[in-house]
């Protein structure tokens, strides 16, 4: 294990938790696995999530723990290495005997741990917005499905900004490709002609955006209002936005709405030239509710850093953790089968003033917000959905996926085909 400042902090917290537990009673603890990369490319996003989990566990212990026992965090570092995620997941479940795991960021890391969770029958809480088209018995998806982020964002641009021409720009991997497929189908269903949609993919970490930005400018000069829907992945965003700013593409002419750019990503950019570009999320730090204020204050105190920001996947972990705590309390045990059966229907308050609910398809209900980038790296919410949007495991926009239903309560199936009346997806 590499000793960064944060893992050291983590170990310390875990250590004190353990000591506390020993002091209180000789009982054993309930172990919670944290599977986030602390080194490698994804450390930039995932380290924060590990810290949030440590904070939540610490807090729960101060409230007296769970089922009379103390919680103990087990932190491992899968080092942004997808096969290592599976190994570390196995280690957490079989060696450390954790009751639930909170972790993963990229879809490929989630896919790589799936077989392990199925085989060893454990629980994974996945906190990041993703492409959907999946529902597994052992996984609970607390991030947004495409209908909780991408579709409302496009609706907003159509209605409020009167956008008629669309650039779908993304990094070349599974999340942007699937999301763009869904968006393309959705736009065409809304009557947007093929010639008004431009799709562009770039490699991971792309840093030379000159050609693409000038292409976008050209595409935008066709006389129709144009917008960019960006599924560009974390690291490539900074040079992309810098190029937009330098080439003078302003949000009032061609707005960019991003699905992977949050407060954390903007911390590395001078946001003044980006004023008015948009992002769609289920949470923003700037949302003014008592719950959110309290959370931000606790977060800053926990990290001892007044400049730390909060973001959407952090909130997803807060909701997921609280749901798990409630389900364990209700079930009276941490036995995975009983907790999995109890979780659907469990409610937990989100930080934006609503109550999120775990659905039978293992996704949750969330509000959707559209925010505009402000000069200080925060977002100003300009639009939100009326109520909470239930997450769809299977997109209604895609051929084939449309017929599938996930229901782990009555149907006990993650891909029930309503046409063939069989569990087993699109085939057969």
């Amino acid at each position, binding site marked *: 294990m590499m000793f*960064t400042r944060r893992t050291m902090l983590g170990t310390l917290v875990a250590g004190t938790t353990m000591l506390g537990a020993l002091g209180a009673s000789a009982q054993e603890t309930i172990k919670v696995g944290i599977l986030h990369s602390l080194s490698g490319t994804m*450390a930039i996003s995932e380290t924060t999530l590990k810290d949030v989990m440590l904070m939540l566990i610490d807090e729960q212990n101060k409230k007296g723990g769970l089922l009379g026992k103390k919680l103990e965090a087990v932190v491992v570092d899968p080092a942004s290495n997808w096969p290592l995620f599976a190994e570390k997941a196995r280690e957490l479940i079989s060696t450390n005997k954790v009751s639930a795991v909170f972790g993963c960021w990229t879809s490929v890391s989630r896919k790589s741990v799936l077989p392990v969770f199925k085989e060893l029958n454990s629980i994974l809480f996945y906190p990041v917005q993703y492409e959907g088209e999946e529902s597994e018995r052992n996984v609970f998806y607390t991030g947004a499905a495409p209908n909780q982020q991408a579709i409302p964002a496009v609706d907003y641009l159509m209605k409020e900004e009167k956008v008629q021409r669309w650039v779908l720009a993304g990094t070349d991997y599974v999340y942007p490709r699937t999301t763009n497929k869904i968006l393309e189908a959705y736009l065409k269903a809304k009557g947007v002609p093929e010639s008004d949609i431009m799709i562009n993919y770039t490699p991971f970490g792309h840093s030379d955006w*000159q050609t693409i930005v000038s292409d976008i400018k050209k595409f935008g000069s066709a006389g129709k209002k144009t917008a960019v829907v960006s599924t560009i992945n974390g*690291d490539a965003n900074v040079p992309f936005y*810098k190029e937009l700013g330098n080439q003078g593409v302003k949000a009032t*002419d061609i707005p960019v709405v991003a699905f992977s750019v949050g407060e954390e990503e903007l911390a590395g950019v001078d946001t003044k030239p980006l004023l008015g570009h948009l992002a769609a999320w289920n949470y923003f730090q700037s949302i003014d509710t008592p719950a959110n204020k309290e959370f931000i204050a606790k977060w800053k105190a926990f990290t001892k850093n007044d400049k730390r920001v909060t973001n959407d996947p952090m909130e997803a972990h807060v909701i997921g953790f609280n749901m798990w705590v409630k389900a364990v309390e209700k079930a009276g045990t941490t036995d995975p089968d009983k907790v999995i059966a109890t979780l659907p229907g469990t409610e937990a308050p989100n930080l934006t003033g609503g109550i999120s609910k775990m659905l039978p398809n293992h996704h949750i209900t969330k509000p959707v917000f559209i925010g505009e980038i402000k000069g200080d790296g925060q977002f100003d919410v300009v639009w939100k959905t009326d109520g909470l949007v239930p997450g769809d495991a299977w997109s209604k926009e895609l051929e084939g996926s449309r017929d599938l239903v996930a229901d782990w309560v009555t149907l006990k199936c993650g891909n029930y085909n309503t046409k063939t009346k069989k569990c087993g997806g699109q085939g057969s």
Partner: protein
Amino acid sequence: MRRLHALALALCAALLTLALTAPVHAAALQEALARFAADSYGETETAIGEVAQSGDPRSAEIIQALAEGRLLYGPGRRTYIKDKSAALFDAATGESAAGEPPAGLKPVRVNNRIRRAIESAMGGLTLLSPDPAKRLEAAQAVFKSRNAAALPTLQTAIEREPDRRIKRVMSEAQAAIIFLASDRPELDRLAAASVIAERADGDAQALLRNLPPGAPERLREAAQRGIDQIESRLAILKAAQNVFYGLSLGSVLLLAAIGLAITFGVMGIINMAHGEMVMLGAYTTFAVQEVIRTSAPGLFDMSLLIALPLAFLVAGGVGVAIERTVIRFLYGRPLETLLATWGVSLILQQAVRTIFGPNNREVGNPSFMSGSFELFGIALTWSRLWIVVFSLGVFFVLLFVLKFTAFGLRMRAVVQNRRMAASMGIRTNWIDAATFGLGSGIAGIAGVALSQIDNVSPNLGQSYIIDSFMVVVFGGVGNLWGALVGALTLGVANKVLEPFAGAVLAKILMLVFIILFIQKRPRGLFALKGRAVEA
């Protein structure tokens, strides 16, 4: 034209009546200002229109304040303006509101729709401003918004305008409004279409395409001709633009690779930690800017110049340390060197992650490196242009050091024949360390430049290491000119391919091309001849 005059006259008359009924329009201003307090984008948009139309001398100031987030509203639907020194004024009267309690004041919220309304209103209001920059901005705003209400002011502005360039933009703005106005005579609109076509850029094209259905046939044809004309002009520009983008990408590759051309090319060390030297340079820039921000903000534009020597020293120092502690024991064992330097690169990355945190760090652009300018209709960004100049500068300085200094002479001697050089009294150990330090230091300098266009994160170096090796291998190991020609060729080829093949495929094609090229010429573009090669 007669119609236009009539309109101008009518407007003058209207203005006169407005002036006579001043108290009435003051009330209208009050009413409009109250709308800002409604905290609704719709109301705010209406209010902007009303304030702009009110003709009140304070309207430009009010809208400017709104744009800058200095327009506040408070209880009783009253609005205030906060000036740059944070002093409060009543928005309606302009009187100081220092004595009143500013409790519960909130800035009026602005979104893209409001920003567009602001631009459009400001365009109309500042056309007659004494500041030429503001007039130009206003004319451009009117061209974009095509706000017909600005037409009379535009007319006056064109007549008064002394600057030819601004005058042209104003005429274009006027033409844009007339072109789209269906109540105008066809001849006026045809003339407007040709004025717009002469502007010959993407915006003009967009405007011509925007002709509403039901326009006269002749106008439609004229617009189409204009579109085609611009299209062919843009196609030529596009080619020129791609070449510039290619040179710019090539110069970035050159910067990243030039240090490697010394450590790998000249010394033959497969240095996987090369990218991390670039990263150290970028983090040095960040640290310098942090210090400048807190202690001497006035020096910010100089921050890169200050960072350059420091980055060279930091990265060069780390390089010498690596050479002395690791690499010197591994000379002649390339596989072990590769693994060892790979390990060093991971250690450096994690060290930086521990010290600075895993997140991106913000490195600001000095003013001379922000924004873009137009050259024959091609938009070039300053940051890219400076990097082209800078990388060529670094290249020639390095070439000079190698060819014309005593150190360069010794270095070349050691590379060509180590034992002979040693027997001539050259301390080869010392030269090895200094050469490796020089290569690393140059990488650090590259980091200063790359911090301007890329993420400053612990992963910065990794994204450049493959490209750097590609350039050096393609250009020919052991030859600086090879690195130059190799980098520029790869850059231009990549950018010419990109529009057709897409960024992902372009990159793959480049790799395939290099693999094939190496099959044909294993020593790269500029093969080093002489004894060292055979050895």
